[in-house]
């Protein structure tokens, strides 16, 4: 008796291939490969065959079983994938709906600018030193070469507390403390950031409170060219590598000679625009060589040592950097304003 194995295989694989669902395929698997399944029935049938026929028959049944298993596995994978795909299709969401809000905070623009400047100078080996805002007249004025009758006191209208104390009008006060503390341990290389106060009415360009950062270098052989080179490097770090600086004669009681430092306009590159009022230059710093009296008051031999000092307004720098038109914005702390300053940039 010979069977048409080919036909049988086709019949079974056809059933498998056309199974519509995982459940029905599972049922087919039981029907075909289960203990009472058709393939197993063939195995039973083999037992009744003559030994010489068994071998061939056995091989044929095994082949058939293997084929059925393979087909079922393949079909099962296919059906499961389909099922998953259907499920995924049902899971489809509207990805255009609003995201969950992962708000991050911001640092105040004055902090961003102050930290940036601190980092520029720290990278050059400067120490960052703070000092008290309620300060003694002696550090704010006297030691900075501004005695009581000095006309420069008019330059800075001062909030006084009593005869000795005032609200610091300039971070120069910190420099004077540094000179006093470190005058015998030269060289000195510091920047001094901090809030200062002037008896001014607040308007778009004036604030009775603002932030300054002053720098001081004292050592042997410090020159005006060192000052220029340092501030050139600073201006380029802050406002871009193309910036040029120029020195203009000015006056500060604690430096001699004294200069204002202009930086070529970062908005127009020096061609002239509203930011630089058409001049191509923006005034950003005051500077000078430390006045010999100031050094002497700190017990430093002004014939042997020299130094330079400079000061920068953090508000002004922030306003220039970000194009802020009214200084009061920096102190109103409107969140719509603050949230704009995500990084230094």
């Amino acid at each position: 008796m010979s069977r048409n194995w080919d036909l049988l295989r086709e019949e079974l694989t056809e059933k498998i291939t056309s199974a519509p669902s995982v459940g029905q395929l599972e049922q087919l698997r039981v029907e075909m490969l289960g203990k009472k399944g058709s393939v197993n029935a063939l195995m039973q049938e083999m037992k009744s065959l003559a030994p010489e026929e068994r071998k061939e028959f056995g091989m044929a049944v095994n082949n058939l079983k293997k084929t059925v298993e393979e087909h079922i596995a393949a079909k099962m994978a296919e059906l499961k994938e389909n099922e998953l795909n259907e499920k995924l299709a049902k899971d489809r969401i509207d990805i255009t709906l609003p995201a969950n809000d992962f708000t991050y905070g911001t640092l105040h623009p004055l902090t961003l600018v102050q930290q940036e400047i601190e980092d520029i100078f720290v990278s050059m080996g400067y120490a960052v030193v703070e000092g008290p805002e309620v300060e003694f007249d002696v550090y704010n004025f006297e030691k900075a070469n501004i005695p009581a009758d000095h006309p420069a006191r008019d330059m800075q209208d001062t909030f006084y507390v009593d005869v000795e104390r005032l609200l610091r009008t300039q971070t120069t006060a910190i420099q004077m403390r540094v000179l006093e503390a470190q005058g015998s341990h030269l060289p000195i290389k510091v920047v001094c950031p901090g809030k200062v106060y002037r008896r001014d009415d607040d308007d778009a360009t004036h604030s009775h409170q603002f932030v300054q950062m002053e720098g001081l270098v004292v050592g042997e052989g410090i020159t005006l060219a060192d000052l220029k080179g340092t501030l050139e490097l600073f201006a380029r770090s802050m406002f871009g590598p193309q910036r040029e600086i120029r020195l203009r004669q000015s006056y500060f009681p604690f430096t001699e000679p004294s200069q204002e430092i202009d930086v070529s306009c970062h908005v127009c590159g020096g061609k002239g625009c509203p930011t630089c009022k058409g001049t191509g230059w923006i005034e950003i710093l005051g500077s000078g060589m430390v006045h010999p009296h100031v050094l002497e008051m700190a017990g430093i031999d002004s014939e042997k040592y020299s130094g330079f000092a400079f000061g920068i307004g953090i508000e002004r720098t922030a306003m220039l950097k970000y194009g802020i038109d009214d200084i009061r914005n920096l102190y109103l702390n409107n969140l719509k304003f603050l949230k704009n300053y995500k990084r230094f940039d």
Partner: protein
Amino acid sequence: MRVTYNWLKQYMDLSDITPEQIAEIMTRGGLEVEGMEKVASGSDLVIGKVLECVPHPDSDHLHVCQVDTGDTVRQIVCGAPNVAAGQKVIVALPGCILPGGEIKSGVIRGQKSDGMICALFELGVDKKQLTEKQLSGIEELPEDAEVGNREVLKYLNLDDIIFDVSLTPNRADCLSIWALAKEVGALLNKKVALPDYSYETETVPATFKLSSETEKCPLFEGKIINHVVIKPSPKWLQDLLHSAGVKAINNVVDISNFVMLETGQPLHFYDLAKIPLREITVKTGLEETYTALDGIDYQIKPEDIMITTGGKAIGIAGIMGGDDSKIDDETKGIIIEAATFSNVQIRNTARRLGLDTEASQHFSKGIDPLGGHKAVERSVQLLLELAEASGIEETVLCGDPSFEPIVIDAPVNKINGLLATKFTAEQVESVFERLDFHPEKVSDDIIRVTIPSYRRDIKVWQDLSEEVVRMLGYENIGSTLPLIPTIQGGLSDRLKNKRVLQQLLMGMGMNEIVSYSLVSKSKIDEGILSAGEAVEVSNRLSDERRYFRTSLLPSMLETAGYNVARSNDEYGLFEIANVYNNDNEEQQHLCIALSNKKTISRWQKLIQENDFYTIKGIVIAIMDKLGYPEKRLSFQIESNSKAVLHPNKSASVYLDRTLVGKIGVIHPACAKKYDLDECVLAELNMTAIYGIRNVKIKFTPVPRYPAVSYDLAMVVDEEVTGEQIVKTIKKTGSSLLRDVQIFDIYRGGSIAEGSKSVAVKVTYQSDDRTLSEDDIRDVHQGIIAALKNNLHAVLRDS
């Protein structure tokens, strides 16, 4: 300080340089030109003659004029009330650009108008310098004005440019136009020729008695001119005064103002007839009400310097004279006062009285010690020339007029060393030459200079180095970096910690604010972690900015309120700033405010509620980040009387046993005051925290064996706190106890009133083995017993 191009031009040849170039060089050299403006402008002006002037047929105030402009006769409609036939006038031709815009041909109410007849203010002349008549009508030119002349501004002496110079305090000498001209000449390297003020006249013996009873008036020169004739000043003088922004009054008054402008020395002229005693004494020590020239009563104090005659005050020295001795149209003779007053006293008096006059500004900034004599001589010269002066008495002097000039040896090498330049001795000498410092070469390296009396800012060789660099130009300065021994730089610990805090709070989603340190009395009273008695500003500008704050919270509340009022009603704000007390103690504080909710997703209804436990968690996180683990903190309820924080939803924060902060929910009354919702707040004293030793980070092994957890549910009295439960468990638990977490609190239902059910997860773990039930049994039973005994807890089935 205002000076005009034409004024400077009198003293030096400026034909090869533009006003813009002059301004640039002045600015680079230290005389900052803040602005340049034309005195008047008009691109296409001509002098015309009104041939005919008839009323406009369709108007009650306009006139139709036929105007001869030289080349042609134009019809111009004019609205000025003073226009009349026969007048010589200024005509702006069609196309002329005036400050107010362009003039065009047109038709005005049916009458053709081919230009405009101008008033001076229409050319941009400062209205303050014009008379009522000039302000209300067109300018009537003199009969001899040449019709057809197109150089109208030049004809009017208005083709001038005003330099607005901002003087630094060290260069108050340049308040004198002569000194300023010298300075400009030096910067431009030009020869400056100032007016010669010598005169020839007979003088008569002095009949004037002058004395000073105060060292605040070290020098006083006085002179009587017995006869002067008051009349208007000549046009050149009026024009110069106008260009400096000074109104012309009459020849004598104008001379006093003009000489002050020229020399920088304030002068005062008294009407001789009104000081019949012919005696002036300068005094201090008066205390009275004095009515000055401006008609205002001023309270004079003993320290103020007063000018008196016969014991009666006639002027506040150096600031303002009195009405009863001023020059008027009837004046026949005058007394000239040129004095030196203490700049400090003048500044103090002027400031106290709120009297900011030209004279007080000059005196406050310090004047040339030789200026008085110069000013008197120049005045006499001009009075002779312009006021028919006669009966000129000898000058009476009070004080010592001698002056010893400062002599400095300028070291060329040191100057070059400081500037890092290679200027030659000749170059340096040339600078001193330009500045009239009378250089004298002592050696190859030393140039001896004699400083003029007005340059009171030059005292040491470093001052001379400034003169050298600003004259030879800052463009000679190179660019190097300091070559000095390397020292360690960097941020202080305090600044590093501040950055850590800023980054942490920013990462938590908060926005940093910076607010004003000066606050009002009520804000001081609202401080919750006050540093102590507040520092008060003695010369406050307003009550709002009166005290240096002792706590940051009130400013924070104001900022939060400001934002809520602008619909920024979900906020997380922080500020780190210094506060002070009156013992000069500084504390760095951190302040936080969070709105009561934060929407994460509106449509998914994900909303984070911020309550007491949020702010408590933030404080714990901050402290943990800085190295102060939670177990070192304690939160103690503390009703505060200030009604800023909710009395039962607030706490004082202790680190070890030190009070370091306050946290809580805002008090409803305070919320109402600032228009806030139920926000949560914290203020920490960072200085106090940093003063306490923190825990350094060290390696702890990652657990290798699993942890086992048990839940305990218990009913306790309402008064029993979560902290008591956790502490009891921790105290009883052995080294195997790793963690205790309260995970449920339940009231009501089967729980009796006044009790609550608390569920706690207790976690055990060992470093060396996997724990079995046997390992834990004793410990766990011990905990249960402790809860029962110590807290009267009733354990529920678990």
